[in-house]
Structure formats: structure tokens, C-alpha cells
């Protein structure tokens, strides 16, 4: 694995106002890579989905800490790890299916993972019931210049 050229770690409580904070922080973190408007929007949207899931699902009946680790590699790859110590996911494959949601009555669309997958190069989900969930998002910036 290549050496990261920059990295950061954040931890913040599961309050809804931190959805905007998290995507703002990530956008500031990657800004010096000079991302295109679409690249910036893609990553902000994916991070917003992952952090919202920690708040809405992971810490559903409780509050807790959310951990966001960011790394930038010299080939322009950005790696973002979003972790909660909440309820975890019983069946990850099912959770990732488009339109699947366990919170339909709260107007969740069940498209959070679909958005992450369509806006990132790679999405990895590690989860254990009762322990929590880690979502890793990977996207290489500068891959689609000229477009």
C-alpha cells in the first residue's frame, strides 16, 4: 500500500447538524487537490450519506461518537472511513440493495448506499450487530479530466 501524503482524523457526536459539518470538513480536506465541481459534489454527497446513516440508523435510540478518517495518496486517491459504534447491520447485502430501508416512515428513500456506490469508485462496508459499522469510501480525483 502506498504512503498517504496527507491524513486527518475527526470525531464528533451524532447530532444532525454534524452532517453539514462532516461534508464541509471533507471538502476543505480535498480542496488542494483542485477537484472538479462534480468530484467535489460526489464526495460531499457520499460522506453526507454515510454520516447520516450513523446518526439515523447506527445511533437510532442513543447518541454516540462518529469517527471520520481521511487519507490522500499521491496518485490522487482519497480514502474516507466513517465509523460508528452503534447497532450494526444484520445483513449488509440486503441493506445495500437500492430502496431497502428500515426507516420508511421517516421518509428515508433507501438510496444512501446506492448514492455512495454511484458517486465513489469503491464502497466497503464492515458491520457487526451490536458493535457498529464502518463504511470506507474510495475515489480517485483527476481520473476524469478532459471530460
Amino acid at each position, binding site marked *: 500500500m502506498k504512503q498517504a501524503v496527507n491524513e486527518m482524523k475527526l470525531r464528533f457526536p451524532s447530532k*444532525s*447538524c454534524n*452532517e*453539514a459539518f462532516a*461534508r464541509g470538513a471533507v471538502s476543505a480536506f480535498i480542496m488542494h487537490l483542485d477537484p472538479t*465541481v*462534480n468530484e467535489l*459534489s460526489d464526495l*460531499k*454527497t457520499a460522506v*453526507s*450519506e454515510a454520516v*447520516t446513516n450513523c*446518526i*439515523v440508523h447506527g445511533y437510532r435510540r442513543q447518541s454516540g461518537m462518529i469517527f471520520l478518517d481521511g487519507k490522500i495518496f499521491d496518485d490522487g486517491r482519497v480514502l474516507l472511513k466513517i465509523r460508528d459504534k452503534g447497532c450494526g447491520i444484520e445483513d449488509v447485502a440486503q441493506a445495500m440493495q*437500492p430502496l431497502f430501508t428500515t426507516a420508511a416512515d*421517516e*421518509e*428515508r*428513500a433507501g*438510496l*444512501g448506499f*446506492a*448514492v455512495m456506490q*454511484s458517486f465513489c469508485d469503491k464502497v466497503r462496508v464492515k458491520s457487526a450487530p451490536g458493535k457498529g459499522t464502518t463504511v470506507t469510501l474510495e475515489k480517485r480525483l483527476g481520473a476524469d479530466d478532459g471530460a
Partner: protein
Amino acid sequence: MVETDYTNHILTAYIRGEIDHDSAARIRVEVDGAAQSLRPRLLRLDFGGVSFMDSSGIGLVMGRCRQMQLLGGTVRVVNYSDNLRRIFVLSGLEGLGVLA
């Protein structure tokens, strides 16, 4: 965050700023309040002032569709940017004729 205009049985809600799970809850309350008292034939959700949206925006639109169905009206989403279109495309709302 939301301004409304009611003309000729059409309620237009001009939504401004960022739509996420946090703000969607507040937008929903304002739009539903106006729709319930005015009972418009058409609810136009104007996304011209929306600078960011995640899948909470899709939930917001689908929820208003259900709400307007109960009130006997329909929903149209107008003025959304290309960036928002890329999110709406994932939702299947296109096929329902909700997107202008």
C-alpha cells in the same frame, strides 16, 4: 429556507440552501403546512436555490407526493441543477413524471 407562492391553485415552494436529513425535516413541516391549508391542485417544488442535496431530498419529494395524493393534487419538481439530476436519476422519480 422555504418561501411559498400561491397563484391559480398552484402552490410553489422555493427551497433554498442544502437539503440533508437535518434540513429536510424543517422543509417538510413548512411545505406540508402550506399545502394542508391551501389544498393546491399542484405543488411545485422549486429547487433553483438548492446548492446541495443527498438522498434525503429524494425522501422529501416522495413524501410530498404521498401527501399531495391524500389532498387530491400532484407534485412537480422544477429548476433543479444537473448535479441534482444525477441524484434524482437514481430514484426512479423520472419514470413517475414528477421531474419537470
